[in-house]
């Protein structure tokens, strides 16, 4: 099987771009090259750890090349990326000693998500939103985060294949809009195979269609009256703020900008991922 052996994490928010810069070769190694990374957020952090964890579980050697930028390298350390990768990967680069200050009202370091801690994480993030955002936007953020966490622990098989979450609230000093970013990545079944478990979705043949369908209310991989999570997330976001959801699974990515209306774009991408990645940003309107 041809596996990704080198993922080039360069520039700002490289994993929110449609295409991931990756090289393929038949190899037992995965290199996450973050040397040219200039700005990272919860999506990059959780994806790095999920990719590494998944590759390690498959018996592959994992290497993380730390960012050349000291601030970015320090942020990766502060957000637990290095601690989580140290037992399973070779960390290539300079590490600094850090004195941790409790910032739990502003950030959630990368944390392994499991059915056992899902609700305490949701509770922490609910409080984070309450302390940093207006009430309506905080409620919108919580509803979105809650649905993504529930999806990951229910369908993403968090705990068995590895799922990770991270979040960061920001004050809006530079953007003028306070907000909250949340990411959850799992290496579970993925959206397409999940939806196809329900015979009514057997016609869905590709990842792009699966992502489009997953955003529609009532489309579910179960045979119960479910499948409203992502649609509810978008409704809640619109009620309480403005937001953006980026969902990646298999060989497709969907981006939904939520303002007065939803602007949905879905496309196929070159580099497939295992499982599903979701990134949500909710900001005060």
């Amino acid at each position, binding site marked *: 099987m041809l596996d990704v052996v080198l993922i080039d994490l360069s520039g700002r928010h490289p994993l929110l771009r449609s295409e991931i810069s990756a090289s393929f070769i038949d190899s037992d190694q995965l290199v996450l090259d973050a040397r040219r990374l200039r700005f990272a957020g919860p999506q990059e952090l959780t994806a790095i750890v999920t990719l590494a964890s998944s590759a390690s579980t498959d018996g592959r050697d994992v290497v993380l090349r730390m960012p050349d930028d000291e601030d970015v390298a320090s942020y990766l350390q502060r957000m637990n990326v290095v601690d989580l990768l140290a037992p399973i990967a070779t960390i290539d680069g300079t590490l600094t000693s850090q004195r941790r200050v409790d910032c739990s009202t502003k950030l959630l370091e990368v944390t392994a998500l499991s*059915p056992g801690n*899902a*609700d*305490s994480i*949701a*509770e922490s*993030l*609910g*409080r984070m939103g*309450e302390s940093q955002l207006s009430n309506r936007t905080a*409620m919108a953020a*919580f*509803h979105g*985060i*809650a*649905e993504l*966490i*529930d999806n990951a*622990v*229910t369908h993403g098989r968090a705990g068995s294949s590895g799922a990770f979450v991270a979040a960061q609230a920001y004050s809006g000093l530079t953007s003028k809009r306070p907000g909250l970013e949340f990411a959850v990545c799992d290496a579970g079944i993925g959206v397409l195979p999940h939806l196809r478990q329900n015979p009514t979705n057997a016609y869905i043949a590709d990842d792009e269609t699966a992502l489009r369908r997953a955003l529609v209310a009532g489309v579910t991989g179960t045979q119960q*009256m*479910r499948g*409203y*999570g992502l649609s*509810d997330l978008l409704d809640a976001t619109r009620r309480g703020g403005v937001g953006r959801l980026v969902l990646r699974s298999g060989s497709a990515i969907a981006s939904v900008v939520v303002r007065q209306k939803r602007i949905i774009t879905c496309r196929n991408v070159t580099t497939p991922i295992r499982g599903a990645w979701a990134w949500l940003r909710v900001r005060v309107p």
Partner: protein
Amino acid sequence: MTQVKPDPALPTTYAVRRHGTFLATRALAKTALRELEDTLAAATADGTVAIDFTGVVAMSISFADEFLGRYYGMLSTSLDAPPAVVLLTGLNDDNFESMTVCLQRRELVAAMANAEGVRLVGAPAVLNQTYHAAGDLGRFTAVHLADRLGISAPNANNRLKRLVAARALIRHRRVAERGGKEFSYETPSPPAAMPSVA
């Protein structure tokens, strides 16, 4: 046989807050539902049950669906099973919204109590109109309600069934003077001590 009206001052209360202030997952909701059922079984609750959301800041619609969507779904399948009255209390605006969405999707309704009285959650306009009329009538029969609303008795009966299924209306059964069974209905009173909202 006439049922005794539950004492509104002494409801069996299930505090949802015990599960946290932000309630997210279906797994947690399943736990809450099991606990609610155990609590009611242990209390042999056949009177008024208050499901109290005081202190709960927010719950996801998925949580609401797995917890109370399922609970009200079960209640609706058996009109005569206890409890006689179920009231949601302490709902803030956000939790009210989550409950409304969850119940409407399942075409169910529930009764909520606050300082202003008892009202329905998730109900279509026609059922709200029926409930207001029921409140005005005191103790009444389906025929009384039909007369009041200008609808047929079978139509009134259908509406009453939905309200009894939601445990939003107390149904009294007695033997009619000419034989057979006869039902009369009344709306429940809010519990004497209403919790404050989160």
